[in-house]
């Protein structure tokens, strides 16, 4: 799949030579990757639901509060 000069070969040399580096990469990658996925999905959600959020209610706070 990857020859000596492929990008995956470089990835192997950098990350997968030592297992300690590999595991650290996985844990850190999972943490930051999940943050990135959460951010991306949230942005997608907001773009699809323009004007439907709670914050977009036009009459928010206008109910008479003093009784």
């Amino acid at each position, binding site marked *: 799949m990857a020859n000596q000069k492929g990008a995956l070969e470089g990835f192997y040399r950098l990350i997968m030579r030592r297992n300690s580096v590999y595991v650290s990469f996985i844990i850190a990658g999972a943490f930051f990757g*999940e943050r990135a*996925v*959460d951010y991306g*999905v*949230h942005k*997608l*959600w907001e773009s*699809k*639901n323009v*004007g*439907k*959020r*709670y914050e*977009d*209610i*036009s*009459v*928010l*706070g*206008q*109910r*008479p*509060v003093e*009784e």
Partner: protein
Amino acid sequence: MVGGGFIQQILRRKLHSQSLATPVRSWLSSTKANVDAGSSGVRAFALLGAGVTGLLSFSTVASADEAEHGLACPDYPWPHDGILSSYDHASIRRGHQVYQQVCASCHSMSLISYRDLVGVAYTEEEAKAMAAEIEVVDGPNDEGEMFTRPGKLSDRLPQPYANESAARFANGGAYPPDLSLITKARHNGQNYVFALLTGYRDPPAGISIREGLHYNPYFPGGAIAMPKMLNDEAVEYEDGVPATEAQMGKDVVSFLSWAAEPEMEERKLMGFKWIFLLSLALLQAAYYRRLKWSVLKSRKLVLDVVN
């Protein structure tokens, strides 16, 4: 056309294999031992044929009977339909207003608390003010007596009747159901409730409804105890949206959908995120499995017979 012929081929192959019991077993086991890639394609076709046969055997499904289930209701384009669609929160707020002014005189929503509305349709101050408008009976005080106090955020929405018997007595023997879960408690709940609320009409010629009931084709049996409640301009919306019958129906069903499934938005976000991530994990797992198995899949066997 082509698909039909294709499916027929599959079925013929599948039926043929079904009629020969023992040869099938040896055929299957021989294909398992056989490393040849072509026969695994045949196996895939056989499995597909089995699936299609199973599917077609379910084709004698009982079709819905209008006399038993009521008129089939159409599918309305709800703003919260779709994988990444949230509720329309302005609609939830208007729907709560409709509920409070039109429905709450007969229908309880005893599983919803005022605090549930905060951050969904009302601010905390608004919800507190709404709660304070009702009187709630609270537990024994230091003297052992029950007392009434103004409502708090933690209180449930008020019930119009003390118990089911009182509700039936006040409504000619019919019990107005609690609406907290109604869109989940009825088949195709959202569409059904909207169709029901807006579906009142004169009965067709020859059908007479007794005194006290009303004709509604969407209600199983056709005769419902609730009269038509949604009429144009019955409610004046805070945000100035014209309160037509259809608008009020849409808003109140949005509110009821939220009440039955408040977790929907979180559920959709979670589902999208994890299905996406697990698909990536599936790709990784498939690659890893094929990587590890490549040793075995590419081995050669040599028969070294001494004779």
